[in-house]
């Protein structure tokens, strides 16, 4: 077992000092980084305006592949958004106390990822100003959306998840915003005063707050499982070979948690290093996240294998052809990138040394992010390009506009996260402190 050598906070006030130090005025390097990321977003915005002006003809979408990079990226960001709720809600209910150090960063990531995900269906429809056709509101002819359509289910699921994640995130932040209000002395004091809503840490406030957090966890736990299930039904309720399968819901949920945890690692490792938070984001946290990655990677790997097995065992020639095409057709590279990154790259994490080696975990997490984007790309693109009728088979190559908007979505995610770092505590102060006091308690720290 690797020795854990990071320094432990010696006093609860040190926890406030260490975490609130991240909020100090930004360095020139930080400003440059935000400018660079904002430039990516700006370029993406230009590409989006270009597409809105000229129409979807500027994308690579054409018959039979009418879902491409945008829907792939939508599913990818929805998946990324799952880690925050897993860590905050599910691990909270399981009383996994190690989550306290990483939950805030994961929740912030969830909020930003789901906001970005919600943009992609709008980008994908081309005429973005027609998005209200999806909203449960009768149009000019009195026709309502079809509530039996999985795409309408998706609208409800994503919006419910977005609103719930934002509220869950904000409720968790309130005590820490009050701590920041009591600490900072510049203009932000007024911001934190307004945002902390008069929080004083009184027993009445804690009584309602703890109950709220418990209930939100209880409600968000089934929600997180439902959201990616509903996303998977966008595919599974269709007749497309490779999509029409009952394994999709658990397969998508496991994949979402897998990619979400990987993104938490990708984002938090540089934060840990840049802001000297080694005493809080400790190697045992990476060890635990590594175990979650191993679990979900195994589920995802099993699902990959099972898809091929079912295609063979079904004796359905369309299904068999689709999977043959997936592994050995034009897009075989995407499939093998997916398998290498999602199934093979996490294998060294069975060794504890790899799980507790932060650099190793970071590199693995990047491979997983790449692999999980390709997983969605493979499912969507190979399924649509090779359906039943060989005369209707086709091919898809993403255009520069689509790829620019894809890159800009990463720019937007990182811009939002980087700005968040300077505005709110990236580690939940009161929850870390709660653990500190429990460890000091005379009866050994458990209730």
């Amino acid at each position, binding site marked *: 077992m690797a020795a854990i050598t990071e320094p432990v906070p010696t*006093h*609860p*006030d040190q926890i*406030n000092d260490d975490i609130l130090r991240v909020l100090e005025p930004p360095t020139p390097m930080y400003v440059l980084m935000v400018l660079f990321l904002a430039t990516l977003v700006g370029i993406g915005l230009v590409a989006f305006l270009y597409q809105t002006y000229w129409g979807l003809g500027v994308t690579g979408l054409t018959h039979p592949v009418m879902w491409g990079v945008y829907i792939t990226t939508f599913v990818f960001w929805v998946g990324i958004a799952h880690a925050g709720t897993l860590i905050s809600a599910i691990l909270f209910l399981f009383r996994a106390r190690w989550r306290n150090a990483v939950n805030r960063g994961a929740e912030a990531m969830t909020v930003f990822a789901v906001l970005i995900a919600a943009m992609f269906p709008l980008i994908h429809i081309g005429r973005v100003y027609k998005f209200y056709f999806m909203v*449960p509101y009768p149009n000019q002819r*009195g*026709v*309502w959306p079809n*509530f*039996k359509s999985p795409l*309408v*289910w998706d609208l*409800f*699921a994503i919006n*419910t998840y977005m*609103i*719930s994640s934002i*509220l*869950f995130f*904000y409720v968790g932040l*309130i*005590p820490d915003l*009050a*701590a920041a*209000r*009591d*600490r900072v002395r510049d203009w932000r004091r007024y911001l934190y005063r307004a945002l902390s*809503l*008069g*929080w*004083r*840490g*009184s*027993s*009445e*406030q*804690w*009584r*309602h*707050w*703890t*109950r*709220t957090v418990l*209930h*939100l966890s209880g*409600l*968000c736990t*089934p*929600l997180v499982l*439902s959201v990616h299930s*509903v996303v998977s039904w966008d595919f599974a309720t269709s007749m497309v070979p490779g999509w029409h399968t009952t394994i999709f819901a658990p397969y998508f949920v496991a994949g979402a948690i897998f990619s979400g945890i990987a993104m938490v690692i990708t984002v938090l490792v540089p934060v840990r290093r840049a802001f000297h938070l080694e005493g809080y984001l400790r190697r045992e946290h990476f060890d635990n996240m590594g175990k979650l990655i191993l679990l979900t990677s195994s589920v995802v790997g099993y699902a990959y294998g099972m898809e091929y097995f079912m295609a063979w065992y079904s004796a359905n020639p369309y299904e068999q052809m689709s999977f043959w095409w997936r592994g050995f057709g034009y897009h075989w590279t995407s499939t093998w990138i997916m398998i290498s990154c999602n199934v093979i790259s996490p294998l060294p994490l069975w060794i504890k040394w790899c799980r507790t080696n932060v650099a190793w975990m970071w590199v693995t997490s990047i491979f997983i992010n790449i692999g999980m984007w390709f997983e969605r790309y493979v499912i969507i693109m190979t399924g649509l390009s090779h359906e039943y009728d060989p005369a209707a088979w086709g091919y898809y190559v993403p255009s520069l506009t689509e790829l620019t908007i894809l890159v800009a979505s990463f720019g937007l995610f990182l811009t939002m996260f980087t700005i968040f770092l300077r505005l709110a505590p990236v580690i939940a102060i*009161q*929850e870390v*402190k*709660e653990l500190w*006091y429990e460890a*000091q*308690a*005379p009866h050994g720290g458990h*209730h």
Partner: protein
Amino acid sequence: MAQVLGVLKSPHELASAILDLKGAGFKDLEVYSPVANHEIEAALDRPPSIIRLLTLIGCLTGVSFAYFMQIWVAYDWPLVIGGKPFASIVSDTIIGFELNILLGVTLTVLGLLFFGLFLTRKGHEAYQPGFSGDSFGCLVACHGDQVGRAQEVLRRAGSQEVRVVEG
């Protein structure tokens, strides 16, 4: 009524102070803590938050509204598919579930804002910034002739600072 504030250094000390004050007959207590703590909660022994009721109301309203909306729309603009009823309870369950969660979450948070923050926004003259850092406060409301007794109990419980709060 006078108010006496004791400042303590740990949740364990605060919980002991609460029990001692209750034992001495002081009932009107308010505490300030930088963390949520079960020991303090148990010592105060307050009834469960009303928020659980609001969550239930939100969830039931959400699920009922979702089914009502979908069934009403199905009959308002029928999509005729041979042999099938217009309303499909099974597929309606998905949106029913989502609105159940959405309204449950929304009402829970509104409950926190109203009961936990709006109704408790006043009367915190005793609050000091240390209560979001490393200090715990125990505020006792008592009659003027009991101030000395309250101060004594708080000091004995380990308070580092004991003072009478004005206002």
